[in-house]
Structures are given as structure tokens and as C-alpha cells.
């Protein structure tokens, strides 16, 4: 006899599970509100009352007041706290006061922009006034575009459109730029790294055009919780910004559970696959018809979990009541899924981070994450999907075996005691800056003595003149080239091309299964390489380096390939330097050259070397910023070269992982390379460098935080349950000589304490 069990019963059961690594309970909080501001237009108040809103949450009130005082703001708000009103209220107020005034909304994705339009139009209908709000993106039909340009009070778009379609055509947008009073930047925290650095320059261009047409807009940003919203927003817009973080939205009681699957291989410290645990946990809730959302990182894993769940609960629920949601679904299908989640027809949804951003799906009761989503900010965004304003909710994060996941689980305080993650951009990265200067010069000629939002650019303009992109005449630089620069510059991708991976297993149906940066491709996609993709083995049949295509075919072999990459780092210029214990940390310009030499075929079970071959690929060069951490040579004297290399690899592995968490970036953005004897210092050295030409500010941030990073790296190794090192901590299993784990720890420790030998 099965009685229907409530969420509370299930929570109680879960509490008894021995694999719970951490259980955190968040108390419920009542709403904190302020009355409608006196200056607010009566029509707005009436419209809000129609929605059943009788007062503003504190953060909404503060935002309104600050914007009315013409201050730039960044409002930090969790999911479902009514953040849209933080910008919609002041924007509408301005339009009601001055009907010519215009606003520009920037959302990181098209889907969010569509959502916002729907939301805005509902609000406008309730207001019963004549305000035109339109989305402007690649899908906007040509005949509508003209209307948007002339008559749109609120233009809702994304940074890419602003960059390539609006700014270069500004003479067609006069009525927008002459009257632009407010710029809204939603989901600010997504503008970091390369993307953020690009967008910051797009904003510089926007401000330049506004100044030309005589407007000076206020910026309203909203962000998920990160450590430095104020810093990031003022970097991004190049203006002073006021932080609004007095969130007044009510919260229900919430349980945050960290679930670490059991170890199944003691030596290698490998745990049960997170995905199967996720399936079981989600099914438990779904069987009781409790609305649950499951987050997973890749599109493929979403599909796998979805089919498992549909199978697991097929007796209790209809297939259709559990849905997938990811990029690649058609917009119409997405809208339908969102709708059915809101009205409760859909009980479960499995999603990539596509649902992390502010798409309106109402609030669910349970959120299960397949692995750490990559940043604390994303985790909170995803966790925010569970938790109605009054009811209790539960969030369960299931760890993978990966070092980052395990690190997080060892340090739950990371989550709950404020967020240590900082989002970085480097808008003065030369490559990015030059790209956008070209666009800016295309939009308006540069005058001698003028700056690019405060940056002196004459030298670059002269360089571009020499390159015959600009023409200098009468103290002005004019664009003189038949290219359209914005088309060659993508805000989202790194400067270098990626290698596209094409599966030609089925002759009649070649398909692209992924892409990889050229640096990694040298070692992973060379001819004859065995390439693993979502658990399937492929052999690379031909790498077309010039066309940047790798043709692969599915195979079933008993070996994998391992390529040697000869990486050389040259420190070109040291900008900063400091002593860390017995070690030295330097930051500066670096040149990385890499060449793939040979590859080995290694048998899967025995790790025997069963063959090898040469790789013929050209040398790659990368000029970037990086840090070098060099150790005192004495410490290494007792080991032979091979062991030193292994030790440094271990240090590099753990430091890289901790650093990536700290500076909020992907492992691919910040590379780590050891060198037994560095060219510039002749010492054993570990380098960390930005994997983007010119650097995007990651290693600079690493330089500043290195003491903390090393301390955490040390703690992390100590906390790892393995004995002599495992893939989760120092990246090497089964030490060859002595206890690697202890030695790596000692090495790191030597940079934390000064024993007078340095």
C-alpha cells in the first residue's frame, strides 16, 4: 500500500542518506516593502494595483529612486525577486514624463529578449498608454525594422545586434540615439571574460555615438550574486555605479543539499557516476508528482537523463509530463514548455543552463544539479529555480569525480558564506580594443586629441593608418576600407578559429559533433588520434589544418592516444613581481609556442605503449599575459628530472583548478604548464596563462590572489581522501616514486612560508 508522500517526508528520508556531504538550511524570510514613491506616475501605480501589487520591495524602491536621481545602478537580485520592475518602473516613468524618450534593453540571448517583450507588453496593456516596445534581432522582419528604428520607445536586443546591426547603422537610428535616456543591461554576470571584454567595448562605442547625438543615458544593470557586481558593472559601462542589494522579496524555507556519490574505485578515487544518482533522486520526487527541475551541463547529458527519467517514472506519469529544455529546441517549442511548466502540466524538466537565465517558468519545488555548474553564481541561479515564495523547497547538488566538484564539496562554506567569485573583464586587451576601434572609426571618424571613453588611442589609430584601414586628414582619422569591420568580429568567440569536428561514420549523413580550439586540437585531433566524445571513441581520419576541420569516424579500439606537446614559454616582460615564501611569483607578457611532436598509442587496461607515430602540424604561437610561479631549485635537487616534471605537473593541476574557481572561468581559459628549468629564471616553474591573445585579465587576478589560491590548493590536497594522489587532486594516479601527494603539498607549502632559503 503506497500512501502519497509529501515533500517533507522525502526530505526526511534524504536526511538519512549517508552520502550527504553537507546539508544547509535557509530560513524563510518575509517580504520587506516600501510604499510607492511619491514621484511615481499614478498610471503606473494603477497598473501595479491591477497586478495585485500594493507596495514595492525594498530593492525595487531603491532602484526607482536612484535612477530618477540619474544614477547608474546595478541591482543584485536572486531569481524570482521581481527584478524586471527594477528597470521597467523607471523606464516607463521616464517615457510617461517625456514621450520622446527612448530606452535600450540588452539581454545576453534572443530568448530572454523575447520573454521581456511579452512581459513588457502585458505591463503596457495594463498601463493603457501608448508605449511601443519591440525586439530587434536577426529574426525581425525588414518591414518591422523600420518601425522599430523610428518609433520604438523601448528597443529590446542583444549585444551582438547592437555591435553588428545597430551601431554601424546609427544614422538610421537617430530618433533612438538622440533621445536615449536609459540603457538596461540584464544578467550582467554573464558579461565576463572574452565576451564581457568585447561587450564593454561595444558599450564604449554606444556611449560615443550617444555623445555624438547629444544624449547621455543612465545605465541600469541587474546581476546574479557575484563577489564584485559593482566593480564589474562600472568596468563594463565605464561609469560610476551605485550598488542596490537590499533585496526585499520574500523567501520560503530552502534546503541546500550536497550529495557526494559513493567511491567505487578506491585507488583512483573514482565515484559512482553522478548522472545515475541524479536519475534516482529526481525520480523519487517525480513519482510523487512534485515539480522538479534537473540541470545538466551538456546537451547530450540532458537528453540521456530525460530518457532515463521518462523510463523510470513511466508507470506513475505520462511521458509528456517530463520535458527537456536546451539550446537547439525551436523557440515555439520552448515557449510551449515554459507555458506548461507554469500551469503545472509539466512535472519535470531537464535543462542545460538555458533555463538558468531569467526565462519565466514559475517556481518549482525541487532542483537537482548533475555536477557543479561551474560557478557559484550559476549554482545560485539554478538553485533559484526551486522555491516558491511561501513553500519549502529543496536543492540537491550531486558531485562528479572532477577536481572542481570535489573541491567545492570539501568547501561548502564557499557557497554559503558569501560568494568569493569575481567576474573579470579586460576591456583594454589590445586585440579586442583594436577590433572595436576599427568599428568605432567606421561609425564615426576619430578626432585628434579625442579618446575612446578615456583611453588614449592615437598610437593605435596611427598603426591602423599604416595598415591602410584608416586615413588621416585634417586632424581626423577616417575609415577608408571597403570592409564592414563588425562582421569580422564575433563577441562570443575567441579570436582564433576553432577546429570543427565532423563525424563521417554515416557516409550519407556527415554531422558536426563538436569543436575545439586550435591549441588543444594539435594534441587531441591530429591524424590517427583517438578522440573521445560523450563516451564514444572516434578515430581522426584526417585533420585539415588549413580549413580547420577534423574528420572522424566511430571506432571501437582497446587503446587511447596521448600526444606530446612541446610547449615553450618565454617571459617577454615582467610587469609585477613578488616573493611568496621561498617561491617567486611574476606577472607579465608571455609568448607561448607549442608544437605537437609525436603520439603514443596506449592500451586501455595495461597502459602499455603499443605504438607511436609522428604529428606533422605547424608550430602555434600565442602572445598573452600570464603568471609564473618559480620554486627554489634546492627543493628539487634530490629528485631526478622526470620526477620533478611529475611534481610540477601535480602542482599545476591543483593550482589551475583552484584558480579557475577563484577567477570564475573555464579550465580552457586559463592554462597551466610546468617547466623543469624555465628559460628566464632557470628555476622549476609553473606557468598559468590566459588562453586568449593579449590576455583577458585572468592571470592578473590570479597574481593578486595567489596566496589564497595556494592556501586553498594545500587545504584541498589535504582534504582529498586518497593516499598517494589521485586524478581528483594532483591529477596523477599511482605514484612512481615516493608519495607524490605529500611532496606536491610540500612544494605548495614552501610558497606559503618563508624558511629563509629564498
Amino acid at each position, binding site marked *: 500500500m503506497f500512501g502519497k508522500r509529501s515533500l517533507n517526508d522525502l526530505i526526511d528520508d534524504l536526511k538519512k542518506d549517508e552520502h550527504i556531504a553537507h546539508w544547509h538550511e535557509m530560513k524563510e524570510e518575509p517580504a520587506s516593502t516600501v510604499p510607492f514613491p511619491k514621484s511615481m506616475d499614478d498610471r503606473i501605480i494603477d497598473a501595479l494595483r491591477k497586478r495585485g501589487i500594493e507596495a514595492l520591495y525594498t530593492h525595487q524602491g531603491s532602484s526607482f529612486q536612484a535612477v530618477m536621481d540619474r544614477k547608474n545602478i546595478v541591482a543584485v537580485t536572486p531569481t524570482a525577486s521581481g527584478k524586471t520592475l527594477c528597470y521597467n518602473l523607471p523606464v516607463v516613468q521616464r517615457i510617461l514624463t517625456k514621450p520622446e524618450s527612448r530606452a535600450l534593453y540588452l539581454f545576453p540571448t534572443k530568448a530572454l529578449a523575447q520573454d521581456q517583450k511579452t512581459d513588457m507588453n502585458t505591463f503596457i496593456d495594463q498601463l493603457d498608454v501608448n508605449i511601443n516596445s519591440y525586439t530587434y534581432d536577426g529574426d525581425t522582419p525588414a518591414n518591422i525594422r523600420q518601425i522599430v528604428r523610428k518609433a520604438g520607445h523601448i528597443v529590446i536586443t542583444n549585444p551582438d545586434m547592437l555591435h553588428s546591426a545597430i551601431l554601424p*547603422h546609427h544614422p538610421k537610428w537617430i530618433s533612438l540615439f538622440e533621445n536615449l535616456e536609459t540603457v538596461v543591461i540584464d544578467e550582467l554576470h554573464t558579461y565576463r571574460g572574452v565576451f564581457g571584454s568585447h561587450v564593454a567595448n561595444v558599450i564604449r562605442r554606444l556611449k560615443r555615438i550617444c555623445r555624438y547625438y547629444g544624449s547621455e543615458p543612465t545605465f541600469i544593470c541587474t546581476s546574479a550574486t557575484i563577489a564584485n557586481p559593482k566593480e564589474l558593472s562600472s568596468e563594463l559601462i565605464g561609469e560610476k555605479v551605485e550598488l542596490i542589494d537590499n533585496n526585499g522579496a520574500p523567501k520560503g524555507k530552502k534546503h541546500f543539499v550536497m550529495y557526494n556519490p559513493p567511491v567505487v574505485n578506491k585507488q583512483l578515487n573514482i565515484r559512482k557516476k553522478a548522472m545515475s544518482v541524479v536519475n534516482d533522486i529526481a525520480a523519487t520526487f517525480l513519482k510523487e508528482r512534485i515539480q522538479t527541475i534537473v540541470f545538466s551541463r551538456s546537451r547530450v547529458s540532458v537528453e540521456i537523463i530525460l530518457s532515463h527519467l521518462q523510463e523510470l517514472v513511466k508507470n506513475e506519469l505520462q511521458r509528456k509530463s517530463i520535458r527537456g529544455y536546451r539550446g537547439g529546441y525551436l523557440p515555439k517549442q520552448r515557449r510551449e514548455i515554459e507555458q506548461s511548466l507554469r500551469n503545472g502540466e509539466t512535472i519535470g524538466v531537464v535543462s542545460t543552463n538555458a533555463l538558468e537565465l531569467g526565462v519565466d517558468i514559475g517556481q518549482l519545488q525541487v532542483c537537482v544539479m548533475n555536477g557543479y555548474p561551474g560557478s557559484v553564481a550559476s549554482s545560485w541561479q539554478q538553485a533559484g529555480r526551486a522555491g516558491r515564495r511561501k513553500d519549502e523547497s529543496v536543492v540537491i547538488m550531486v558531485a562528479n569525480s572532477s577536481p572542481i566538484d570535489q573541491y567545492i564539496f570539501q568547501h561548502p562554506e564557499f557557497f554559503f558564506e558569501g560568494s568569493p567569485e569575481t567576474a573579470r573583464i579586460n576591456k583594454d586587451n589590445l586585440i579586442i580594443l583594436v577590433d572595436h576601434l576599427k568599428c568605432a572609426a567606421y561609425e564615426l571618424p576619430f578626432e585628434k586629441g579625442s579618446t575612446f571613453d578615456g583611453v588614449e588611442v592615437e598610437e593605435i589609430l596611427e598603426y591602423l593608418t599604416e595598415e591602410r584601414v584608416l586615413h588621416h586628414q585634417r586632424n581626423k582619422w577616417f575609415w577608408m576600407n571597403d570592409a564592414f569591420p563588425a562582421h569580422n568580429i564575433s563577441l562570443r568567440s575567441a*579570436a582564433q578559429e576553432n577546429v570543427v569536428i565532423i563525424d563521417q561514420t554515416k557516409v550519407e549523413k556527415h554531422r558536426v559533433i563538436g569543436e575545439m580550439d586550435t591549441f588543444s586540437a594539435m594534441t587531441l585531433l591530429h591524424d590517427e588520434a583517438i578522440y573521445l566524445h560523450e563516451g564514444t571513441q572516434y578515430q581522426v581520419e584526417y585533420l585539415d589544418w588549413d580549413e580547420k576541420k577534423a574528420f572522424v569516424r566511430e571506432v571501437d579500439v582497446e587503446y587511447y592516444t596521448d600526444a606530446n606537446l612541446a610547449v615553450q614559454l618565454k617571459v617577454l616582460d615582467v610587469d609585477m613581481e613578488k616573493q611568496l615564501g621561498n617561491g617567486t611569483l611574476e606577472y607579465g607578457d608571455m609568448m607561448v609556442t607549442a608544437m605537437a611532436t609525436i603520439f603514443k598509442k596506449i592500451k586501455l587496461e595495461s597502459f602499455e605503449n603499443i605504438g607511436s607515430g609522428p604529428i606533422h602540424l605547424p608550430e602555434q604561437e600565442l602572445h598573452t599575459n600570464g603568471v609564473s610561479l618559480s620554486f627554489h631549485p634546492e627543493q628539487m635537487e634530490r629528485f631526478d628530472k622526470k620526477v620533478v616534471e611529475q611534481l610540477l605537473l601535480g602542482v599545476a593541476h591543483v593550482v589551475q583548478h583552484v584558480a579557475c574557481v577563484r577567477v570564475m572561468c573555464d579550465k580552457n581559459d586559463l592554462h597551466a604548464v610546468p617547466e623543469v628549468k624555465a628559460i628566464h629564471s632557470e628555476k622549476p616553474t609553473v606557468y598559468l596563462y590566459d588562453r586568449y591573445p593579449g590576455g583577458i585579465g585572468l592571470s592578473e587576478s590570479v597574481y593578486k590572489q595567489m596566496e589564497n589560491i595556494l592556501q586553498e590548493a594545500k587545504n584541498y590536497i589535504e582534504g582529498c581522501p586518497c593516499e598517494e594522489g589521485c586524478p581528483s587532486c594532483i591529477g596523477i594516479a599511482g605514484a612512481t616514486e615516493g608519495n607524490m601527494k605529500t611532496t606536491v603539498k610540500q612544494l605548495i607549502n614552501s610558497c606559503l612560508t618563508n624558511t629563509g632559503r629564498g
Partner: protein
Amino acid sequence: MSIKSKLQRMKTHLKAEDTHDGLVEKLEDSPPVLVFADSDRELAEKWKKHGFDPFSFGDQISYRKRSFYPWKNSAEKRDIETTYKLWDEYSHEHPLSCKDVPLHRMLFFDTETTGLSTGAGNTIFLIGYARVLKEGIEVIQHLLGDPSSEGAFLYGFLQDFHEEDYLVSYNGKAFDWPQVRSRHTFVRDQVPRLPAFGHIDLLHAARRLWKHELPSCRLSIVEKEKLGIFRSNDTPGSMAPILYYEYLQEEDPEHLLGIIEHNNQDVRSLISLFVAISNRIFFQSQSPFSQMEHIQIGNWLEQTGNLEGAKGHYITASNYDDKDSGDAFYRLGLLLKKMGDVADAKKSFTKCVQISPFCHIDAYIELAKLAEHQEKDYLLAHAYARKAKQGLKGSQRLTKKQTDLLSAVKKRVERLEKKLG
């Protein structure tokens, strides 16, 4: 490290903008020339030699050239005036109609730009237009001496204009004129407002008439194939951007002479083109036009409400013994039906199916309709409908439209069978 040396080092990471590799190499061979503002006078002297008169506007200078081409013979003048007169007498609306516009107010117009995109960084450096005057054709060209003189350039151009001027261009509606408008916004505080001109775009007309027979409707191809104009040593318009940069670098007008001549020829060709297309509409020619031209013009006149005119073109087209005769008869049939002439419509459709039995399924359907509704001859209607069905079934692969047609035909056949009992 200085920014410049960093840039040199990172050069491989920076994207090059050059799209004309061959020419760029040539450019790099020549030594860089320094540009001084003082050289204005010197440059003006150089332009004068090529017939361009400098005029100043504030501290800016722009250049203007007038060329005049007297009538070569009386026929040339007569052709234009006849065309103009025919339009003046034409009693229907038509996109090419220049009724009520004085002939000398028609401005055959073209621009040359520094790029092909339509964004803010694309500059117009040459505007040319031709007018028909009593003694011949006048061509005026305005040249942007340097990018900082855009105010003078557009001012000079606007000064020449008259509120009543009527533009005739080739793709000007989509490209040249929006570009003029965009450039105008940059100097709108310095120069007069841009009037709203009437505008005839001959590209639209050319596409209508010739897209089926010409590989492309580029002006150079239309000129060669339809106007019999052969240019020798022409500088193609696509070279304009790179030539202008070369001119700016070296301050040598010689670089632009080819493109200036090209522009001059273009605007005069527009006059011939206007006449040529109008002639086709008004049957003004000694030598016959092609069957397809008559069909397309018929279609155009039909759409713009001149049914009698359309009928004339369709009948002419149907008298040709050419591959599109079936089509001509079919269209003629439809038009006659629309005009209420059922008997002649039927004759037309019958001709159509005789000429090309299975190319015009629609003609069978029309015949079936006429037989069923007008003549009440169900047996005949049934026979035609079955022909249509047979024809459709004979096709290798059906398009969506054909599939719909087939099911409609099937229904018709069934209905007729029911009526026949």
C-alpha cells in the same frame, strides 16, 4: 613595451581588413606619402586640369564637373522625346511613368562609394547625374576631395537640386539613395534639408523583363545585351573603393579618372535604358522584341491596370513561334476571361493545350471550368479534368503546390462523375 611594438608582435592575432590582396601588394611597393592640409591648393590645381572646379564651403573644398554631350543625330533626340511624350499621354498608373515631370527635371543618377556595405563607415565619394536638355545631354559630377569635406560635397550636390527633380536610378532605392540619406545625417547641421524626391528605379524594371534571359541584371550586362553599348577599357565599379584609397594616399586624381568616366557612362546609359524599356512597353521599335519580353510586359501592364495594353502584348507574344507560346496563350486566356470574353478565352486555352499538351495543366483546368460552368457540358469538362489529372500524375515529382492542385483536380473529376451519373 610600446603599444605599437605590441601590435606588431600580435599582428598574426589581429584580423586584416584587406580584401583586395593583389592590389594591396601593389600599394605597398609605393612609398607612403605624407598628407598636409596645405596641399589643398595644389590638389585643386590638379583637379582643375581634369575639368573639376573646386568650390569652397567654410574651410572645406569640393569639386564639380560639367560635361555636355550634344545630340549625335536627330534620331537620338527624337527617341527620348517620343518616349517622354508617350508617357505623358499614357492614361494608367505605372512605376516608370514620368507624367507631369518636365523632361529636364528627370535626373539620371548614380553614386560611387568606398565600400559595398550600407553602414556608417561607407562614404560616397562621387555623385553623378545626367539631364536631357534641348541641345544634348548634360552630366554633372560631384567629387569628394577628401573625407573631411563631406559638408561641402553634399552642399554642392544639394545646391544643384530642385524640389521638383525626379530621380531615375539603377538600384538607387535600395542602395544609393539610403546611402545619400545616411551621409546627409552626418552633416545635417551644415547643409540644407534633403528633399523627398520622386524616384524611378530601373533595376526593378530590368529584373522584370530580363531575369529569365540574362545571367544577371547588372547594368554592364544589360548594356551589352540589350542596349548594344560596348565599353572599352571600362573601370568596373567594384574597383571604386581601392582606387579612392589610392587617390587619398597619393593625392593624385589620375587614380580616379577611370571611375569618373565609368560613372559618367553609367548615368548616360540610364537614359538609353529608360528609353529601351519604355519602347518595349509602347511597341516602339523597328526590330522585334523577344517573346518573353512581351509576356513580362503584358504581365506588368495587367498588374498595373492596363488590361488592353496587356492584351496587345500577350497577343503579340502568342504570335511568336517560340518556346513560351503556350505560356502566352494561357496568360492571354486568363486575361480574356477576366475581361469577360469567354469565347476568346476558350480559344486561347485550347491553343495553349494544343501547343504544349502537358506543360500547362492549369489550362486544362480552366477549360474544364469553362465547360462545366459556362457551357454546362459535363462530359467535355470531365474529359479536360481527366487530362489535367493525367498530366499531374505523369510528373516525376510533385511540388507542394502541385500536390494541392492534384487533390483539387481529383475532387473536380469526382464531382463531374457524380453529375454525369
